[in-house]
């Protein structure tokens, strides 16, 4: 049933795919076949990840930002809409925003040096038993290093210039739930430590190995558990193995005319099991819900046995929901192996949109009103002025829909926008989904509300570009790192009445902290409101600075990130809306959920995993 490129598809699913996956990799025709009888649809990401993905940066090997001979920025490869395009303004933006210069370059190590890696601690008994069971495994250094990290800044920095103190000793690739049961049994028997690995997109240090772990660390890579086991059209659910990536899940469901609608920005690489383990949130949650709304059933292998519920009832009053121990457990309790997830028919119609507001305050007021009237489109995001300006920097040379926001706006609204200060205005991007008529009606409703807050509709293209940017922005960090610019994003959720204060204070705190720590150029400190709820919003920050002249940039960076998080908490923001706690934000968990709360989590952990087999030490 593998769909090679060019297979005839239904109209709607074709349209759907065009829109949704336009930026994603076309089906790899000859995907690394593992000659697995169990894997009818070979996954987009091969077992040897390094064959396709960067070992020291984000995303695909073939896709990256570089400066060409003329000194113009380019995005290489063919995968994304931006691929192959020249971006003439990017350089100037980098120079102006960060004081970066093409002459000031740092380079990453060219390749991994096997002898740098810490030697593997191998539990022979465990390996013998694994071998005997025929479960694929590896202790190749490249494989091990690849699974020693997520995508936090310091992890990238370490890959480029140093080495982790501790990495997994062995990788195992279970093919199915039963394999996982056996692996966990063996782990208990031999007292080795298991760290589940999904897509490796963690941004909370969740995958980092505890330095002082003396036992063998087994990275349990779920990538080979990637089948959709069944689709139930009567109940609109699909039963799926946890290692499937977002892009494969949506594509394969799309072939049957369905989708989950769960689209985190990392969906090309992150996995269903990873989403469950981190309580992920997708861009279109307004229609489809967050992961906790989507999950109907879970199967989880723990050292105490398998946890699951006995039926698929849509809601239950059976005491505290045990799935809520699992969602957000971050690999500390066991391995999520199979998930029954809600599906929806592919939407008939999709439409992007955008609104320009005179200032961020008005924009937030509008989003609040939209949330109040419960008429948020599939996605609604509000960028602040700095991000709006950044959009300009990614303007490709070729005249196409890729003219920058600014140009796009100018073209259509040059007269209307007279009263708008280009240094204050901000943009909301919108995505509507549904049947055509309803979408158009919905669209009107939202634009009417926007108008009350001084918002002017600014076209579909601006909207679409806005969403496209979120997929390439992760690549941009790698470019920055080549020129002494380091950065990261982080997020929070906050009640409506504090959104503005929190945004302002956190951004300002970052600027101030940079100054105090000797950062020589003002940092990029920008935010956007990415989700709306009845009672509040999710806010997402980008922060980057030029570290020339600073001897320990990662340390400085971490101090500033720490300060920013403190500021968030002091302003009524949460510890995390969707990235999770991992090890990065552990120190604040106690204050966030109270001593008793910690005790509750701890007692669950102690019961489920008394020997700390799942010893990645996240959360607690």
């Amino acid at each position, binding site marked *: 049933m593998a769909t090679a490129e060019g297979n005839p598809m239904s109209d709607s699913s074709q349209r759907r795919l065009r829109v949704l996956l336009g930026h994603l990799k076309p089906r790899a025709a000859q995907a690394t076949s593992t000659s697995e009888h169990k894997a009818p649809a070979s996954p987009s990401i091969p077992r040897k990840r390094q064959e396709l993905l960067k070992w020291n940066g984000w995303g695909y090997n073939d896709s990256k930002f570089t400066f060409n001979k003329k000194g113009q920025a380019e995005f290489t490869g063919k995968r994304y809409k931006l691929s192959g395009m020249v971006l003439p303004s990017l350089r100037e933006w980098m120079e102006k925003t960060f004081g970066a210069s093409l002459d000031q370059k740092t380079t990453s190590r060219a390749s991994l040096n096997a002898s740098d890696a810490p030697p593997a601690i191998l539990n022979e008994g465990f390996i013998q038993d694994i071998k005997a069971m025929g479960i694929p495994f590896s202790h190749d250094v490249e494989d091990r290093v690849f699974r020693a990290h997520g995508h936090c800044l310091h992890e990238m920095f370490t890959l480029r210039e140093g080495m982790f103190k501790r990495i997994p000793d062995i990788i195992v690739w279970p093919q199915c739930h039963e394999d996982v049961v056996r692996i966990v049994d063996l782990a208990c028997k031999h007292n080795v430590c298991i760290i589940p690995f999904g897509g490796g997109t963690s941004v909370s240090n969740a995958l980092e190995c505890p330095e002082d772990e003396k036992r063998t660390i087994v990275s349990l890579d779920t990538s080979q558990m990637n089948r959709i086991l069944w689709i139930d059209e009567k109940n609109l659910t699909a039963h799926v193995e946890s290692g499937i990536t977002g892009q494969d899940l949506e594509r394969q469901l799309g072939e049957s005319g369905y989708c989950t609608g769960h689209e985190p920005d990392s969906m090309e690489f992150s996995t269903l099991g990873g989403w469950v383990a981190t309580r992920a949130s997708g861009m279109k949650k307004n229609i489809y819900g967050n992961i906790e709304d989507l999950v109907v059933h879970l199967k989880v292998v723990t050292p105490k046995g398998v946890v699951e519920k006995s039926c698929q009832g849509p809601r239950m009053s059976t005491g505290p929901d045990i799935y809520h121990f699992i969602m957000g457990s971050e690999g500390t309790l066991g391995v999520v192996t199979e998930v029954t997830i809600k599906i929806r028919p592919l939407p008939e119609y999709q439409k992007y949109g955008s609104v320009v507001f005179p200032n961020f305050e008005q924009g937030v007021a509008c989003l609040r009103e939209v949330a109040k009237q419960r008429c948020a489109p599939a996605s609604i995001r509000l960028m602040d002025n700095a991000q709006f300006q950044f959009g300009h920097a990614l303007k490709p040379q070729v005249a196409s829909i890729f003219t920058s926001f600014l140009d796009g706006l100018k073209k259509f609204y040059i007269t209307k926008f007279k009263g708008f200060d280009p240094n204050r205005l901000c943009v909301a991007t919108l995505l509507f989904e549904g049947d055509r008529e309803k979408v158009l009606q919905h669209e009107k409703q939202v634009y009417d509300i926007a108008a009350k807050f001084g918002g002017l509709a600014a076209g579909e293209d601006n909207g679409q570009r806005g969403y496209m940017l979120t997929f390439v922005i992760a690549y941009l960090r790698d470019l920055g790192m080549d020129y002494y610019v380091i950065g990261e994003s982080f997020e929070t959720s906050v009640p409506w*009445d*504090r959104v503005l*204060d*929190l945004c*302002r*204070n956190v951004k*300002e*705190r970052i600027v101030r902290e940079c100054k105090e720590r000797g950062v020589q150029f003002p940092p990029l400190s920008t935010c956007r409101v990415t989700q709306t709820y009845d009672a509040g919003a999710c806010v997402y920050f980008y922060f980057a600075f030029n570290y020339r002249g600073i001897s320990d940039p990662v340390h400085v960076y971490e101090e500033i990130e720490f300060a920013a998080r403190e500021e968030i*908490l*002091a*302003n*009524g923001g949460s510890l995390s809306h969707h990235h999770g706690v991992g090890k990065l934000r552990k120190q604040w968990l106690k*204050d966030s959920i109270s001593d008793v709360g910690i005790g509750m989590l701890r007692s669950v952990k102690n019961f489920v995993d008394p020997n700390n087999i799942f010893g990645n030490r996240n959360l607690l």
Partner: protein
Amino acid sequence: MTAAMGSPYAQREIKNKKRDVFEDILEERRQSSDLRYAMKCYSPVIYRNLVPCKPSVLKTMVLHSDQLQYVIKQISLESGETCDVIQDQAAEILDEMGQNLNLAAIRMFALTLSKIFKTLFQKVCVNEEGIQRLAQAIHEHPVVLLPSHRSYIDFLMMSYVLYTYDLALPVIAAGMDFMSMKIVGELLRMSGAFFMRRTFRGNKLYWAVFAEYVKTMLRNGYAPVEFFVEGQRSRTCKTINPKFGLLSVIMEPFFKGEVFDTYLVPISISYERVLEESLYAYELLGVPKPKESTSGLLKARKILSENFGSIHVFFGKPMSLRSLASGKLNRSQYNLIPRYLSQKPSEDIQRFISDVAYKVELHQIANMVLSPGALIAAILLQNFPSLSYNVLVDKTMWLKELTEAFGGYLEWPDNMSASKVVRSSLDLHSNITKLIDGEVFLFDNNTNGVLTEELVFSRGVSVLMCAAYRNQMVNIYARPALVVLAMKMAQSSKSEDVYKMFDFLRNLFSKEFIFFPGFEKKDFEEGCFLLSKCDVIQGNPHEMVLMEKGSSTTVFLLKMFHPFFEGYQLAFRHLVEDMTRKWTEKQYISTVRSFVTQCIIDGTTTCYEALSSDIQKNALASFVHLGLLKVNKLEGQITFTVNETNIEDFAGKLGLQVPTKKLPVARL
């Protein structure tokens, strides 16, 4: 021990610090046109995030704020009045207190004040570095100006100085009594003052409107907000213990994350001669003060013919509230309740507010400029009725050195002989002191041996006026002086015993002088450090001894603080005379005054300062604080009774005996 709030006042540090340079702003006014000055282009630095708005818009914002709307609803529920009615009342209150900044008025004001100040004062000196720091601060974050308060001139002066330097005029939380001065009141209002009633305790609506008004101005960075941490003019020229109410209001926007930061700027305004000096003395002696009214101020016309010397305005370093709070406060305590609800400040917040308040005052004190008159006053008070002019000159020079060694901030005229300096200072204060045949008199001693109440009163006036000038520097001396006093009173010369006594005295005088809360040890060390630096004491961790070399300093310090000590002793004696009695504060103040007057007439004391209601009030508060008095609240009236359990112990510490005959029989 490291200072919990940074070091608020290590006097030794201040001593070594390079002082800012003062600039006389009247000099230019004397040379160029006042009118042109008043009409100059005035475009002050403003807060970078300011969205400019008119006072009327500001008022609307206040009236429609969630905070005020909530309170209005509450009051409506409680009282049965409709919300509309209460809303109207709120609007009225707002109009009553509202400032009405108006450029024409400001110019008019500038012109008038130029003329007045030039006749009244020789110089108005401002540290320009402070002005530059302030301008920067105003640009960055909302600013709160916190001047010391010795005179009504204070806030006229503040606005005048800021206008002169092209800085935003502050909005001032001023006492309502000013408003009854028709023209002046309106002028003040138009140049940015807003008024609050002196007493609105219990008036929920008033407080809500007021607090919201202040906070709205801060959140918008509309203009610097100005008020006095001391809460009122200090009649004694001694810094008054801080009030916390307004401080907590202005800190709230920061606590709740509504502003990123707020700058607090301590400002010290020092007067060589205070306009209200005699009024204050009368007030302290219980003669009711005249209501401030325009005619009252105009009568002050006669004042215009007098010379009030120089004024120094020192703008301290802006203190970032955020930096002060860093690591000390958990602001997430405000996360769980909507921000429009006012929340009783938690203990750590209260402590923080209090610490900041003391810190501000200690900065004010450290940057207060002392004039030769303060030194002379201190000397005269120890030598009344008179001493020889030459001795006075010598002692003044001696005291100058000591004061500087203790970190006092003296402005001494350059190129003038000591004698000249003393002479001109005596001239300036000729209403208090008389120089006759080479003798300097504080008051004339021609009593024919008979002291009448009238005479005691009139001498009291002279002493209290004089004491006010000494008081300008009393806080500089408090630490070392209390160490010396403690050494004299302690059981032994063991450091431990001396410290215990010091701690007692510091506690006893906690309402009298300004001590940073919780810094007992530090204060002690500071005092010891200064004393040993000046060779007054010698000590090791176990023992402390007074040195022969420093005996004149020792004597001076003891005498300087004796009036306070004796004042408290007299208060105590009076209280224990009839231990069954219930006192209101008013009754107590008046009977203790009679008691002291009688003691003076009897010749059992010469402590005229003990007549001061200020000392008596402070003593009362201190006795309550120490548990010597019990507070009873009955039908809104507060009365005090003696708490007999502590009496003897306490008397012992004060060096007194409880008159046994007065002890109730039951206790025997």
